[in-house]
């Protein structure tokens, strides 16, 4: 079974490039050139240099002693939260800004939900001196204020997406519309393994540095280069794709993708795409997405803005379809509890997105000698207000 993309841009039946003709030249140019550029020596050198000196990679693989004691197993955390700007998102934006330069682009656009990808994009644009426009749903602008201010401080223009439900999917629509209106000078830095081919593959490759390092680090720590369980949260699925990438063909590793269950999968307020979704097209990709019977895209819900996406990257639709990975939905409350627990057991406040992955520790019982790696995709600084509010609400109930 092939889990990575095939030569036609598909993962099994998922993927492809379902785009209007207006986007064809942009996407075709990328498709034609991304592998050649990414494979070139100069690109690789620049990419790794920046990951090392600017992002601070390799990110540590940390043995979480107290958490391991609590759950009676061996838990390691891949510390993407320690990256510059606080999440895995920067691995991708560094890669894409270099690519944009190779393509001779002069203007950068991006979408953002939680603001992490927006900040990571604004950061690399500042680094390269390129103009940067970030589309962000009006609703998200209100719930992720600190990140909006960070983007502005970094010199980016934040444009509110006023269409539809004014969240991540609409910000993505607006970014795509911008790209249609600027077909030659602009590169669109997509923030996850979503969108038309070659984006899902390109972003997965940039994020695959996570599992590349993990293999080395595990080899050093435990004498073998793979864990028994590998857990990551999934919004669009980029941190999970990066963490899974070099283990896709190793059946000894149980891959676990954790989705946002919101107020419960059956509650009507959820973002558990693989469970609630049906095959269809969102943002140019054939994948699983939440939609009505009539094929209208449904607005998802999650307490975490970064998981609040009605689709999932086509690689994950394929991993779900082939049962290569377990998909599990975690509710808001379970995630928040896990976030607080990690804060108090290890002194690490995780992003609420990431907290979903930790909540899965309550859902299975690995053996004491088994090794569990959790991809700690980001830190929780941006989420302080939500943590505080959630705790206050719990206290009054």
């Amino acid at each position, binding site marked *: 079974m092939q889990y990575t993309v095939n030569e036609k841009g598909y993962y099994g039946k998922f993927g492809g490039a379902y785009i209007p003709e207006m986007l064809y030249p942009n996407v075709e140019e990328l498709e034609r050139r991304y592998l050649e550029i990414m494979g070139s020596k100069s690109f690789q050198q620049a990419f790794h240099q920046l990951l090392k000196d600017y992002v601070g990679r390799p990110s540590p693989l940390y043995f979480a002693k107290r958490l391991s004691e609590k759950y009676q197993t061996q838990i390691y955390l891949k510390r993407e939260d320690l990256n510059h700007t606080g999440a895995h998102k920067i691995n991708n934006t560094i890669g894409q800004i270099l690519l944009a330069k190779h393509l001779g682009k002069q203007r950068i656009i991006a979408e953002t939900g939680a603001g992490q990808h927006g900040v990571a994009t604004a950061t690399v644009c500042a680094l390269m001196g390129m103009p940067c426009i970030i589309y962000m749903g009006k609703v998200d602008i209100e719930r992720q204020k600190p990140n909006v201010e960070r983007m502005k401080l970094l010199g980016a223009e934040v444009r509110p997406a006023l269409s*539809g439900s004014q969240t991540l999917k609409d910000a993505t629509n607006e970014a795509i519309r911008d790209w249609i209106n600027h077909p030659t000078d602009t590169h669109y830095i997509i923030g996850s393994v979503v969108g038309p081919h070659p984006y899902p593959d390109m972003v997965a490759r940039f994020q695959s540095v996570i599992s590349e390092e993990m293999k080395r680090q595990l080899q050093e720590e435990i004498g073998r280069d793979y864990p028994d369980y590998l857990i990551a949260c999934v919004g669009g699925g980029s941190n999970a794709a990066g963490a899974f990438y070099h283990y896709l063909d190793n059946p000894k590793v149980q891959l676990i993708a954790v989705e946002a269950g919101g107020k419960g999968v059956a509650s009507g307020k959820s973002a558990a795409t693989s469970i609630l979704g*049906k095959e269809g*097209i*969102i*943002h140019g990709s054939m994948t699983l997405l939440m*939609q009505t019977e*009539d094929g*209208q895209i449904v607005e998802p819900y999650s307490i975490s803005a970064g998981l609040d996406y009605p689709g999932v990257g086509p690689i994950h639709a394929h991993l779900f379809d082939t049962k290569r990975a377990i998909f599990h939905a975690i509710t808001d409350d379970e995630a928040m509890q896990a976030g607080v627990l990690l804060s108090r057991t290890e002194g690490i406040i995780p992003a609420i997105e990431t907290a979903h992955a930790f909540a899965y520790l309550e859902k299975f019982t690995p053996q004491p000698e088994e090794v569990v790696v959790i991809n700690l995709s980001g830190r929780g600084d941006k989420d302080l207000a939500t943590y505080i509010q959630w705790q206050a609400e719990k206290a009054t109930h």
Partner: protein
Amino acid sequence: MNRLDTLFQEKKANILNIYFTAGYPQLQDTTTLLTLLEETGVDIVEIGMPFSDPLADGETIQGSSQKALENGMTLSVLFEQLRDVRQKISIPIILMGYLNPVLQYGMEAFCKQCKAVGVDAVILPDMPLAVYETMYAPLFQQYGLANIFLITPQTSEKRIRTIDKLSKGFIYMVSSASTTGAKEGFGEEQEAYFQRIQAMNLQNPCLIGFGIANQASFLKACQYAAGAIIGSAFIKAIGQEAPLEEAVKQFVAQVRPQSQLTS
């Protein structure tokens, strides 16, 4: 013979194609609008199948789509409304929309319904050419439907030739790199593009769409192509307070010169 082919055989110039979103402004306006458009001398109508996330559309059509969905428009409702349409309407009817709702309805069921009610062609801008060729071309053929392709100023000559070969009916020439309703009127760059396409002598007629809002831009488009397509400007016109009949008549009269009506 397909009504589109008949039209293009009989009429080589000044073709006016008007787009509206099904279910807008009111759910039940579809057949009223069709009747009014035919009465006012419009040559082709494009009925938009509303979608929640219309990527290639600007604010106006996003808005009409959202309103239409709120009004309860679905593909099933639309086909029901169109059931007896061919008893009244004889101009070509095209359905335009995004692929996802059609896939959920089922491509074959969709093509079958199109034929049953008398739809002549379909425009699905986000259906890739390769997917159409390998998966759906036989279905379209079986049900006598033309698949209309788009070209833009950025489309390469080679690709335009391929599209020309695969096309039936006409080619939809997007006037500029933009979403619908984003720009009005044409500049020098666009005229150069129109001339370039005109010089290619394609086997299919072209209709120019995007950015056409009034008589000046309509006439300009007609200089270079068989005619033009108007969407956003028409949606704006029928979204006002005025009764539909008045709005449609006034709009078409504004766009099309009297002299063309008698020809």
